């Protein structure tokens, strides 16, 4: 193919919107980081530029005065327990649905997957009273359980499609050697599907770390707040206290783990999300 001047100009023209969108995405995030180093006075004076000096005072304030330390701990617990419980529940079910043909396996798969399309907001009101009955309201472990079950449809969906790529002959060989089905699941299937398990776990962890609305409904006392709730609280306080610097510092605390995960697992995350999205 020949390269004409028109083609070169066209390519440059295409780059303009791409660069503009890059700025539109990165600048607000970049600026949020800068803002976390500014004092409140400086944010008013110079909201969008570089800080005069890089001070960590806002982080210290957020950490101690606004109990971000507790919220980070709570978010870690919810994320870890939620992600682990999702796996414990989803792996055996995905394996049974994909590999053991039984009557109703197809129905069960459709039941789980169609739950992805149902607006859960209807279920949250009864769930509120159910958690109250179980003494799990205002309880981060209760929230982790709700999170885990809410991600079951997505996790089962992705894991079944992943398991279908593992050759059957390995299980058959292990069964002939006398391995129990429990052993096959634990020692053959799980190691072989580790890549899929890691992908869904990262996706679920980001989801749990970021989640806001169920936490808002199901948690009440501030010592149980997750990071999302703590930030929301600081944000509504900032209208009166002008604690913008503290707010930005806590936004940064919330977003850094996600950036790190994304930097490491960028391909897995985008692949996992597009696969999970194909569920309409």
């Amino acid at each position, binding site marked *: 193919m020949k390269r004409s001047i028109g083609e070169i100009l*066209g*390519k440059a023209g295409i*780059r303009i919107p*791409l660069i503009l*969108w*890059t700025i539109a*995405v990165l600048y*607000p*995030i970049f*600026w949020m980081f800068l803002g976390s180093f500014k004092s409140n006075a400086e*944010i*008013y004076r110079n909201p*969008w530029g570089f800080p005069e000096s890089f001070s960590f005072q806002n982080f210290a304030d957020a950490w101690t005065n606004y109990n971000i330390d507790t919220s980070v701990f709570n978010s870690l617990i919810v994320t870890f327990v939620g992600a682990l419980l999702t796996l414990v*529940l989803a792996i*055996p*079910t995905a*394996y*049974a649905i994909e590999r*053991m043909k039984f009557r109703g396996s197809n129905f*069960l798969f459709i039941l*789980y997957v169609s*739950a992805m399309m149902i*607006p*859960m*907001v*209807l*279920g949250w*009101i*009864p769930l509120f*009273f*159910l958690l109250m009955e179980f003494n799990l309201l205002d309880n981060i472990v209760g929230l982790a*359980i709700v999170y*885990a*079950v809410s991600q079951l449809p997505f996790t089962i969906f992705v894991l079944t499609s992943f398991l279908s790529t593992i050759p059957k002959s390995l299980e058959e060989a292990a069964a002939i050697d006398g391995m129990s*089905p429990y052993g096959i699941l634990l020692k053959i299937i799980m190691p072989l599907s580790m890549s899929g398990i890691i992908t869904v776990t990262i996706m679920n962890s*980001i989801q749990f*770390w*970021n*989640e*806001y*609305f169920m936490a808002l*409904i199901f948690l009440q006392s501030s010592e149980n707040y997750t990071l*999302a709730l703590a*930030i*929301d609280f600081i*944000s509504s306080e900032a209208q009166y206290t002008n604690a*913008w610097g503290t707010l930005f510092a806590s*936004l940064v605390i*919330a*977003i850094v783990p*996600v950036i790190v*995960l994304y930097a490491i697992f*960028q391909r897995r995350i*985008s692949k996992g*999300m*597009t696969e999970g*999205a*194909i*569920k*309409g």
Partner: protein
Amino acid sequence: MVQSKKQKYMFLAFCLVPTFIMFSIFTLYPLFSGLYYSFFDFSGSSANMEYIGIENYIRLINDAIIPNTIIHDYFLVVTKIIGIMILAMFFAVALTQMKIKEAPFYRIVFFFPNIMSVVVIGILWTFIYNPNLGLVNSGLEFLGLESWTRPWLGSETWALPSLVLPSIWAGIGLFMLMLMGGIANISKSYYEAAEIDGANGWKQFWKVTLPLVWPQVKISVLYIVITTLNGSFIIVQVMTGGGPNNSTHVMGSYLYQQAFVQYNFGYGTAIGVMILILSLITVFILQLLMRRDKVEY
């Protein structure tokens, strides 16, 4: 096989039963009892739970705020579909077919907002719209358009449209990737054939690219519809709380307010049932509208 039938059933039960019990308790039961609650006057304590038949639904029909919440939801659905699909399609075509060297960089950057928390996005954009400190107003002033500046989220007219931009900002990467996946699967020979027939880039897009990525377009549109109807209340809650003067309330945020702020739980579930029914009807109608004969060559 060495295992007996009984062993096989035991293993099946081990795999399926605990998960199904948890799913039933925390997903199925709440959904069905949501339907059930919607026939009760229920303010939170079981002592005050009174069966009132379809009264919640009568109230729903006569509630002057409800039609606005529905309109707001569909306003977000339509503007998001238009904004996201046009931009995502443009970026997807640019990054797959224009042979841009740094395409992976754009792909990674554009997707990044998709993994950010709605709270972080909402607060960030609340600040971008801030009348005194925000980027939007200072940008307009910089361009000499002082008369266009306004308190975006505090204005009854502008608050709802202002919520569209953050949603597009946060959503575009995912749909761009889905469309890129579709375009990557199109055989190069179609474009070569189109080139020989003298079709220019624009014509190639309409005659080759778009028909062949139609499945991805369809899934993307359905996905935007479902996630918006079922989840738009989160960005509303974070950025405006439904205000000013109910001008940004969507169905979900109104449900939240009725149930968890004003403790009208029975009425809240009736709103939830309405959201469920409207979502199902919308998805059904869209699937009819977007049914397009599969293109095969």
